């Protein structure tokens, strides 16, 4: 892979929250690369470290208690971790922007939505106020909201409309990388379908790269090119959609798929993953998933597995593949 073509390159990122009660090991050495115009889905359950990873890219980790212990985050060839506050302000919203899960709290209730979109444009581009307002209206219309509603306040919009406004703000400056943190979790399915379609269209139009954080594998299948599965602060499996969906390798990914009710076969029995995610202040010595894994052996409990590349794009962290004959059991369709 050509490094020049990378919009995002994370290497060995470690983020801890140092609290009174112990160190929460939220992100424990992850590597993630994203090429221009591509989109990657970061999948995992609550507490897997997805949002912490996203916040680290924007340097928005609350400090204290959060500390970026080590690692490298390159955004379009420049190291984010070396930037000072002023430089970061220029990058946020211009080169990289983020859509948060809850559109209700992401908007400022005392400014009109037009002002909030224009604010981002005024901050990053050399334009007059009236030009910025015009652009704000255009962005609103692109997001599927009539331009005259630019003078309305957030409470006058429904949840789906608010999320459209948030998307308009995020894309107002033609950002290179868009990070979307569960952007449709708070929305109903029919509205979710609308918002996903909008994101897809705008992403194409502005040639933005997308880091999509979600717990929903269905959404990943819908709009991502690649997928990375996180568990207890590690990326345990990543690859193209075909790699991960059709040639699943990691037992945790397998467990996720087997836990989902199959819409086409209502009689299929759910096979949940036994047990719970380990406490991030007290992770197992070996593989973090070993406590729940049905294939775990002694080595899994003693040592951390290293990344193993199945092909150029498909990576899995699992000892079981030391045995060439090993394969997991996806539920039969």
């Amino acid at each position, binding site marked *: 892979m050509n490094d020049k073509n990378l919009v995002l390159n994370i290497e060995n990122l470690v983020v801890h929250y140092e609290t009174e009660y112990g160190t929460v090991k939220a992100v424990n050495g992850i590597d993630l690369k994203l090429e221009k115009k591509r989109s990657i889905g970061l999948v995992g359950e609550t507490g897997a470290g997805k949002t912490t990873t996203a916040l680290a890219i924007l340097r928005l980790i609350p400090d204290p208690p959060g500390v970026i212990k080590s690692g490298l985050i390159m955004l379009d060839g420049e190291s984010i971790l070396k930037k000072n506050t002023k430089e970061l302000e220029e990058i946020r919203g211009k080169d990289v922007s983020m859509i948060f899960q809850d559109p209700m709290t992401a908007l400022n209730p005392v400014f009109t939505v037009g002002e909030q979109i224009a604010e981002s444009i005024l901050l990053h581009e050399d334009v007059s106020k009236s030009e910025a307002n015009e652009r704000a209206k255009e962005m609103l219309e692109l997001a599927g909201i009539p331009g005259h509603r630019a003078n309305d306040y957030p409470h006058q919009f429904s949840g789906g409309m608010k999320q459209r406004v948030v998307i308009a703000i995020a894309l107002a400056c033609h950002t290179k990388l868009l990070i979307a943190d569960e952007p449709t979790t708070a929305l109903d399915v029919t509205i979710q379908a*609308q918002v996903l379609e909008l994101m897809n269209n705008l992403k194409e139009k502005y040639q933005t790269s997308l880091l999509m954080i979600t717990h929903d594998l269905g959404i990943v*299948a819908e709009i991502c090119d690649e997928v990375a599965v996180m568990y207890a602060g590690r990326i345990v499996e990543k690859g193209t959609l075909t790699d991960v969906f059709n040639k699943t390798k990691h037992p945790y990914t397998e467990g996720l798929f087997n*836990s989902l*009710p199959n819409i086409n076969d209502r009689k299929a029995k759910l096979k949940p993953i036994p047990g719970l995610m380990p406490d991030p202040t007290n992770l197992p010595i070996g593989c973090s998933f070993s406590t729940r894994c049905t294939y775990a052996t002694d080595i899994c409990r003693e040592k951390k597995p290293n990344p193993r590349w199945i092909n150029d794009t498909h990576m899995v962290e699992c000892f079981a593949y030391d045995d060439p004959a090993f394969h997991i059991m996806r539920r039969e369709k």
Partner: protein
Amino acid sequence: MAENLVEVKNLKKCFNTSRGILHAVDGVSFNIEEGQTLGIVGESGCGKSTTGRAILRLIEPTSGEVYFKGRDVIKYNELELRKARKEMQIIFQDPFSSLDPRKTVSQIISEPIKIHNLIPNNKDRESRVLELMKTVGLADRLFNTYPHELDGGRRQRIGIARALSVNPKFIVCDEPVSALDVSIQAQILNLLKELQEKLNLTYMFITHDLSVVNHFSDHIAVMYLGKLVEKAPAEELFAHPMHPYTQALLSAIPVPDLGERKKRIILKGEVISPIDMPEECRFAKRCLYTCNTCTDHIPELREVTPNHFVACEFPLGVK
């Protein structure tokens, strides 16, 4: 065919608001056979939770009849209602706010037993609580812990044990898994299913998640703005959705399978306000097939093919 355990007839619940009358549930009728599961699906604000609560009279319905084992629950006085609640229980969506933070696990689970005075003896009650904890998969050592010490999945198990403590026949499950991660969600769904088989429970399963409801229900009813728009056996509903809303809803589910990227139906606009609604099909404004007939009156729920009910003048796929 088993007998109907629950029969709901023309149930209505209106709320008076400063802007007018809000029709949360607007004339809903359905039956649930003993030992079966009726799934109620719909988006936020369609009245599915209100329906569930009105059936148990946790909120008083404005009008309508709810027959439980042939007797109208709505006519019960307070004493009779309390007795009836022994047989009708509910599991709530949010395992964080539905448990008293100042009570221990054992106190929470034993409270309904005490209220109904089922087991007066302390020792016996304690062993009953332990038995219930075992049934739902909670370890004995959690007997004296408080809810805040436990994760969402375990808390939801407490909610289930509490509902089971009085040996109910009928349980309203109000989005019992939507606050949980997928791997935990599957654990709870399997548990609810096992319990149903073991104890011959009847469920009303309220959810917005169509893949969950398909997996779980025998019959499915789709709600839109306080009305039932379609009702059919689960397989039939998924194979032949007849209401344009059901069809759009089914097509909007993201499927974690690369093989079948089907064409999505993207609905225009959003749900209209449930306050002072016009006398027309409630879905008319978003429907792809609206015509004059649709804005003329509110369509009635009618049986189009055997056991398949739909409230649309022009059901899809029917000549």
